[in-house]
């Protein structure tokens, strides 16, 4: 696709990599890394959302809960998976799985790969905003280690809702953005065709986000991208997850399980640090004076 060496790929090229239908998806990572996998279904209230896969299994000998957005490889599968766009049931299923993780002290692994939460009428009727907020809140209170891997496209609140863990790992050609490049271009310039420009301006690549302190680590992909050598990509993801879990064990594991207070405080602090602002002593600056006099 690109003649440029990997480190010089543009943001828009990476968007194409992230969306490549042949790129490994959540179920591929589960297939390669999770043994004794059991998928669990349903939010116990309305339905089972196939855009978000959840279940339990064994990662290198330890029991874990796994969540992940699931896109399809073709149109037929994408219709079943709603193109990886979760509806409210998905987030309520995620919260249910977090309760299981807490109860049985199981670390959680989340795979992020969605264009965003479903923006349809029925999703609004069933409380899409409240469902996403609920998942964020449950994750902020979940006293087990959570490792997140952005494997493809991290789109907006629909991605964030299962992403606020203790470690955020991001694949080299994955992207993560406040809104998809197309939506960003529409919002900013009323022109979706300017998506490539939006992709550059919005700073959505793994390198950008590592620099911002938003992701913790970049997972290298095979030279031609994860889709060109899925097996190697999956193996790299596995070893990075292992290292992250080991780090979290070293920091928070005690004789009686995880140190919940320290883990949750550290997680809150991790997100508290994210932001960019100027701070004056509370007094009227030039700008305010101009306004006051205007």
């Amino acid at each position, binding site marked *: 696709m690109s003649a440029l060496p990997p480190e010089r790929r543009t943001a828009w090229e990476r968007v194409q990599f992230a969306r490549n239908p042949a790129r490994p998806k959540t179920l591929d990572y589960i297939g390669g890394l999770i043994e004794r996998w059991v998928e669990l279904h349903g939010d116990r209230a309305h339905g089972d959302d196939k855009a978000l896969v959840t279940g339990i299994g064994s990662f290198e000998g330890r029991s874990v809960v796994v969540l992940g957005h699931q896109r399809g490889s073709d149109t037929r599968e994408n219709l079943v998976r709603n193109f990886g766009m979760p509806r409210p049931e998905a987030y309520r299923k995620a919260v249910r799985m977090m309760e299981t993780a807490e109860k049985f002290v199981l670390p959680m692994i989340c795979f992020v790969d969605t264009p965003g*939460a479903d*923006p*349809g*009428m029925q*999703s*609004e009727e*069933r*409380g*899409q*905003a*409240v469902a*996403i*907020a609920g998942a*964020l*809140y449950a994750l*902020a*209170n979940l006293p087990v280690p959570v490792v997140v891997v952005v494997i493809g496209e991290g789109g*907006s*609140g629909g991605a*964030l809702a299962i*992403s*606020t863990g203790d470690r955020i790992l991001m694949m080299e050609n994955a992207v*993560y*953005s*406040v*809104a998809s490049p197309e*939506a*960003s271009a529409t*919002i*900013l*310039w009323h022109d979706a065709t300017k998506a490539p*420009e939006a992709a550059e*301006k*919005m*700073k*959505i690549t793994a390198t*950008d*986000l590592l620099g*911002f302190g*938003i992701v913790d680590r970049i997972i290298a992909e095979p030279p031609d991208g994860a889709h060109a050598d899925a097996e190697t990509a999956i193996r790299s993801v596995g070893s990075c997850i292992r290292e992250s879990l080991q780090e979290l064990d070293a920091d928070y594991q005690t004789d009686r399980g995880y140190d919940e207070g320290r883990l*949750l405080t550290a*997680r*809150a602090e991790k*997100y*508290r640090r*994210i*932001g*960019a*602002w*100027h*701070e*004056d002593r*509370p*007094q*009227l600056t030039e*700008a*305010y004076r101009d*306004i*006051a006099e*205007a």
Partner: protein
Amino acid sequence: MKDWFRRHHPPSFQAAGENNREIPDDLWTKCPGCGELLYQRELEVNDWVCARCAHHFRLRAPQRLAQLTDEASFEEHEAGLRPADPLDFVSATESYQEKLDQARKKAKLSEAMVVGTARLNGCPIVIAVTDFRFMGGSMGSVYGEKLVRAVDLARERRLPVLTVSASGGARMHEGMYSLMQMAKTTAAFAQLGRERLPHISLLTDPCTGGVTASYATNADVIVAEPGALIGFAGPRVIEQTTRQKLPQGFQTAEFCLQHGMVDMVTPRRELRPVISNLVQLLCGNVRVAS
């Protein structure tokens, strides 16, 4: 209108005087609800609610604070925080710095979020109000930081938190920093909750996107103003995606009440007694400052 709050710190917004009117200069205002021409002075007396059709006009943050909190009780905090430009956002048509300058002039605020302490029917609270006129009440780094510091203050002094939201969601111009404010504010409110301090959220017109999908609905009680637009995706996005016309009343506060997303829809006039009663009841068995 002059003395409704004390200035312990110089405020981030211009408080008193002629520039502080919702719709300046005109003596008459056309109601967007019923089309009636309303006399501005009467509207003010009526808390910016149309006497004929009960349409609730949008309030700016200073007006909201004046309407909701006890007279001269509001004390602003964190007024010194100003937005940075972490993406160096410049495009052919506009830069973030230019947008911010315009917003400051238009809204007469330094940011979309104003936080501080106040009293509500005598109860001390921490209050955080969004102003929709500042870049659509969008949540960027300063919005998130002010809110988190307000929550810290509430934890330190053991005070309940009232948030009043009117926002289009995350601010595009700060990119992922903006999205992460959803995580940041949620984490802070989760800490508040673990310490058994209440969060009451008042949703006002309009409230969509990342604000509705984070702290604004992670509350012990969610109150909505009549007619307020509340949702995740905005109506235009839904119509574009589904190519369907939305039915009348879709995503209104009343619709959200019917679908179980908010606890109550409360007219502006009744907000103060209703919210102070809630705060007192919730704090019946926990220690809070008095």
